[in-house]
């Protein structure tokens, strides 16, 4: 009897189960299809946002207006109204904006829960569905790292310099490590070996001690900087670039010929670079030092005194010639100086004419961009015309062009080009100069011979022959028709003074920027 009762109970239960299992189906009233471009698995920075997009499909014969259950850090961007199944509007695009700053370090896992809306637009919790497990939200929060500079230049065997990494996030950045690609050259080290766990708003100072080996060979026209990728297990990646430089290293558009290792640790080295190619080449397309506005050849020279950029044989430091001398020469050379007055004295700087090419170039441009002199056209005194003089016609003008993406070039001063000259030399070899520091870039004009760099880097444009400097040659009394130039050859480098009407080469320089 007992067994019969148990058996019959069992049969009833089985029948009930089968009845329920076969008669009714289980399916969500609305389903979520994740988008490929904005999937539900994503990471967001602790100060940024990310969008997750679903297509929501309604499977019911009833229309629905759907709104997400309030969730911290999640916002529904647009309404989601879906019509009955089988109709045109039975789907909607659900865009969810995730706000990293509102999420805790654990991020956002699960959901979104999407509910039927009440008439006032608020979600009613009596009818809600979420995506299937595999399509649910899985948002991780990335703490944001920032680094003090995006590029750090150091001198080989020079002073150590630092990069400061900061955790900008609101939670700990974990396992913050770095790796260099390409690898650091031998002798160069970075310390500490890891930044570990960084608390919010804390910093980690990486000290880079440069060894004697530069990051790329001097003369290499396509040098690779070292990318130092810094990241934590829950952060973004910052990749500052490190350049370990020596004389001849190609950097910021030119060959490094002067290095200033005195800037503070947190900054890059200073220095000067020489452009990778000539703006004008002697015997090919040489130009005069100064032009009357008609052309770039000898007949087109304009002999004027440019104040403040002169260099006597014994002195390259005291600013000369004087403004008064330049003004007097101008007024006696030209007829209509009343219409085109000489620029005011405040327009010119008092330069160290022998060493400050940038200052010299500024003064030369101040003059030749204000007038076309027409010097030598007709008879003296000559008739001035409005400027500017075409920058392609004269040496300093050629350095106003954009070269290798930079537009702050100048015509180098005499002592920036070499330290040895005739007659005598007013330059000191303690002024870092092109002839002393870029030996492997210097070839021969006649007989023609390449420089050492060219054998390894065939695209190298060697220095050979005469090149204008921005230093006026100042004899007592001041001469308006002389300037100085540098001769480069593999046998001897020297500088001298000569007629501004000579058609010589031009190679520009610039000061490297942080």
């Amino acid at each position, binding site marked *: 009897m007992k067994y019969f009762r148990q058996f019959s109970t069992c049969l009833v239960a089985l029948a*009930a189960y089968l009845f*329920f299992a076969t*008669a*009714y*189906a*289980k*399916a*969500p*009233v609305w*389903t979520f299809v994740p988008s490929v471009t904005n999937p539900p698995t994503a990471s967001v920075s602790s100060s940024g946002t990310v969008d997750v997009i679903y297509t929501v499909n309604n*499977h*019911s*014969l*009833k229309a*629905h*207006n759907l709104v997400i259950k309030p969730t911290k850090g999640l916002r529904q961007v647009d309404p989601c109204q879906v019509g009955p199944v089988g109709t045109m509007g039975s789907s909607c695009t659900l865009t969810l904006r995730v706000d990293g700053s509102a999420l805790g370090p654990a991020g956002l896992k699960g959901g979104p*829960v999407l*509910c*039927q*809306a*009440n*008439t006032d637009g608020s979600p*009613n*919790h*009596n*009818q*809600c*569905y*979420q*995506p*299937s*497990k595999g399509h649910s939200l899985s948002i991780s929060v990335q703490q944001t790292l920032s680094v003090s500079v995006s590029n750090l230049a150091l001198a080989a065997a020079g002073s150590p310099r630092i990069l400061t990494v900061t955790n900008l996030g609101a939670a700990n950045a974990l396992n913050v490590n770095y790796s260099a690609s390409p690898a650091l050259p031998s002798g160069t080290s970075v310390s500490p070996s890891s930044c570990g766990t960084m608390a919010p708003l804390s910093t980690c100072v990486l000290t880079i001690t440069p060894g004697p080996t530069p990051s790329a060979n001097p003369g290499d026209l396509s040098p690779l900087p070292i990318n130092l990728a810094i990241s934590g297990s829950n952060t973004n990646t910052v990749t500052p670039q490190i350049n370990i430089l020596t004389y001849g290293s190609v950097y910021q558009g030119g060959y490094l010929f002067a290095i200033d290792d005195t800037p503070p640790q947190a900054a890059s080295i200073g220095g000067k670079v020489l452009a990778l190619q000539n703006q004008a080449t002697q015997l090919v397309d040489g130009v005069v030092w100064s032009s009357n506005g008609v052309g770039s050849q000898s007949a087109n020279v304009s002999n004027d005194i440019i104040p403040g950029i002169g260099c006597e044989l014994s002195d390259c430091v005291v600013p000369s010639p004087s403004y008064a001398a330049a003004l007097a020469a101008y007024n006696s050379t030209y007829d209509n100086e009343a219409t085109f007055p000489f620029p005011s004295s405040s327009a010119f700087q008092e330069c160290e004419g022998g060493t400050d090419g940038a200052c010299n170039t500024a003064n030369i441009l101040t003059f030749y961009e204000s007038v076309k002199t027409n010097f030598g056209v007709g008879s003296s005194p000559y008739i001035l015309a409005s400027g500017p003089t075409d920058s392609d016609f004269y040496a300093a003008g050629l350095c106003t062009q954009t070269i290798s993406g930079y537009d702050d070039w100048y015509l180098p001063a005499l002592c920036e080009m070499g330290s040895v000259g005739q007659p005598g030399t007013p330059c000191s070899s303690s002024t870092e100069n092109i002839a002393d520091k870029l030996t492997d870039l210097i070839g021969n004009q006649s007989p023609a011979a390449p420089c050492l760099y060219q054998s390894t880097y065939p695209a190298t444009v060697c220095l050979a022959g005469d090149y204008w400097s921005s230093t006026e040659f100042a004899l007592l009394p001041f001469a308006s028709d002389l300037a100085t130039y540098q001769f480069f050859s593999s046998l001897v480098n020297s500088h001298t003074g000569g007629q501004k009407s000579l058609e010589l080469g031009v190679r520009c320089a610039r000061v490297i920027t942080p």
Partner: protein
Amino acid sequence: MSFRIRFGLLTLLSISFSIAHSSAASESNLTWVAGASAGSLWAEAGQTQTIQLTPEIEKTYVDAESTQVIPSGEFFFGMQKSLSKQCRGQLGLAVTINDNLNIEGVIWDDTNPQFANENYQYDVQNNRLALKGKLLFDTAYYGVSPWVSVSLGLGFNRAHDYTNTPLIFEAIPNKNFADHTEAAFSYSLGLGLQKTINQHWAVGIGYEFSDWGKNGLGSAPEQTLNSGPSMDHIYTNGLLFAIFYSA
């Protein structure tokens, strides 16, 4: 309070009452009588219904139609009078306590059997106070008396502890309907056999049909229309064993 504790307390209450008044009524052929009975009820409670919770949300609550057996107990206290040589009548108050009946089923979201996504369940418990009348026929056959009874009264139906459970991962549990106690007209009809043991004591066995009357749950949070699942009747069939004492 659990069924057993309530049962025990009422037992003590009615026994003490009846002993106090045993002697007074015998001269007028009117005697006090008390009885206690216990047994099982069979009931199939629950009713499939569609409820509009808000203007936008409508669901069908599909009853599982399961039959249950629950314990039940009753205390009777009243007066007995001989109506004829063979006929006795009893009239008094009956207090009935029943255990919880479990109502369960599945919810069709949007009233559509395609979306049978949640199970639901809740309990209804009935306590009843009724005026009960009983007619006994005394036969000479071994002191056995068949009887019929009817009671009319007020039942307190407490619908409570509603829960719902999703059947698929994607479904989120709905809000639960609130507990609600309904006072409803309740009645019963019974028949049975009673055997006299001695002058005062008798034992009996009986069948009783009862209707617990109206019952239902309250509203769920965020529900703006109607209230929870409800029924007009719960019918039960009971088999009870009783013991009687008369003065």
